[in-house]
């Protein structure tokens, strides 16, 4: 469909080189995880794996000797809960922003964006104080709340973008047929925007999965660490176990790659349009 069929072969070669260079870190992480320690801890590590001597010991070791599964479970609990709550609040608010242009609604939409401007390293200071006074430190609820606060603003604007693509006539027709406003939203609009809800949920999961500062500060006890915090503590040890760390990193990346592949088409079509409109 796109213009300029100029030299497809040259484009293909260029993109292959770019992918090899830009994805080398991911390759090197996996490569380190499956190469025996004696080979990889060398001044001249092999760039390609020796297929005969591949070893998955590093994966077994990191699961056996580190609370890796616990970190994963913590990330899943916090990510799942916070994404669900954020999605609910964001879908409702996004619909309101999409359909109503009262000055108050506009202003509230702008206030939501404030959440994106504040540095996490700053906002964590009052949150830490509030949570320590309120007894929310080292609790899942507290971290979920913090993730919801970061997730809601962007998710709201994402959802607004999805609702904007559904013509107003759809709910007007539903209301003429006797639906209330809420009924039209629940039974007509939300089902129509299911792909939007799904991609927004995956987006929220990705953001929560990668979050570090709040997890590090609000849930720092060894048993409470989420994945990113666990990996950072692992990497900060005196003698770093690089193959083990790279195995843990590889395992961390698997769900991320799956989520990203699901999300990517929506990112390309949806998110940029929303970002450009703002």
């Amino acid at each position: 469909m796109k213009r300029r069929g100029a030299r497809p072969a040259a484009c293909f070669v260029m993109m292959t080189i770019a992918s090899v260079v830009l994805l080398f870190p991911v390759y090197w992480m996996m490569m380190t995880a499956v190469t025996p320690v004696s080979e990889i801890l060398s001044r001249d590590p092999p760039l390609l794996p020796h297929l005969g001597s591949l070893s998955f010991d590093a994966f077994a070791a990191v699961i056996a000797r580190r609370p890796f599964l616990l970190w994963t479970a913590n990330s899943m609990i916090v990510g799942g809960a916070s994404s669900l709550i954020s999605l609910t609040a964001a879908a409702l608010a996004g619909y309101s922003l999409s359909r109503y242009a009262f000055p108050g609604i506009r202003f509230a939409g702008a206030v939501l964006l404030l959440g994106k401007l504040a540095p996490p390293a700053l906002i964590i200071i009052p949150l830490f104080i509030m949570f320590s006074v309120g007894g929310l430190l080292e609790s899942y609820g507290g971290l979920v709340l913090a993730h919801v606060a970061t997730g809601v603003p962007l998710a709201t604007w994402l959802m607004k973008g999805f609702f904007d693509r559904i013509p107003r006539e759809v709910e007007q027709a539903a209301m003429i047929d006797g639906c209330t406003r809420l009924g039209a939203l629940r039974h007509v609009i939300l089902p129509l925007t299911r792909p939007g809800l799904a991609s927004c949920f995956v987006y929220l999961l990705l953001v929560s999965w990668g979050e570090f500062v709040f997890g590090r500060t609000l849930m720092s006890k060894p048993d409470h660490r989420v994945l990113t915090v666990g990996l950072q503590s692992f990497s900060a040890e005196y003698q770093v176990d690089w193959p083990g760390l790279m195995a843990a990193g590889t395992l961390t990346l698997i769900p991320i790659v799956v989520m990203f592949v699901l999300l990517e088409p929506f990112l390309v079509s949806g998110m940029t349009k929303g970002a450009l409109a703002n």
Partner: protein
Amino acid sequence: MSDAILVGRRAARPRGLRLSEGVRERIFAYALLAPALLIVLAMVVYPLARVADISTRIGRTMNFARIGLLPIGAGNYARTLSDPAFWQAVEVTAIYIAASVAFAFAIGLGTALVLDLTFPARRLFRTLLLLPWAVPGVVASIVFRWMFDGSYGVVNAMLRHAGLFAADIPWFADARTALAAAIVPTVWKAYPLITLTLLAAMQTIPGELYEASAVDGASAVARFRHITWPGIGAAAILAMLVSALWIFRDIDIIYAATGGGPAGSTQTLAMYVYNEAFQYFRIGAAAAVGMLMIVAALIASGVSLAFAGKQRL
């Protein structure tokens, strides 16, 4: 049929509460917005007000409930502005953002220009090239620390093979190279969003413009200057602004890479805020620097958006 239903429903509505249609609409609109707004008010706006207040409180206390009892003054700001570590952080931040955004923009523009063309496996390449965006900053940071390791790092091995350096450089551990090293994972995580934004802008440029220019025999450079660039100018500024703000705010990569060291050589302002608060417990000073950061971010956003607005005309 549907008319009958309509009339029936209207008549059945309880008439006791005489709210006009407009008022009902308003209540509905605000009610939908309320949960999201409450979350942001409680978890962002109120904390920001608290931290603004903390930035004016002089003295230290370990009892957080008593911070409000400390005397008010500009002491935190005055002390911060005379702290050499603060000014070092300003310098580090400026270099870190400028270099990261410049490299990320170059990679983002290059990849977007090619991905806008037609060639085999284009969608696969697009997915592959956008992937680093989804990698958590901490993970990116750790991988690059391993690649740039002084003893076993693959980067030193490659440089040695290429005959560029004979020495084993501990990139992240040496104060002279640490900032350059920290820029690499930052660029890696930042460029996909620029690719994505520029690509979206390029795809809104009508294909006829390129066809016409081909008829006129315009060179590739001329096409870029007169068709592509005007079409993506506003998006380019926006992409750079969003990336710069993210790099300004975030500490994930720096924290996991160096924690701000060695000797403050990678301590950005955001990292300075975190270290002041959670390493040295100088909460007032941390809050003051954080407030200055927000003001700086607001000014930079305002200027860039005004600039992007002009580009669009």
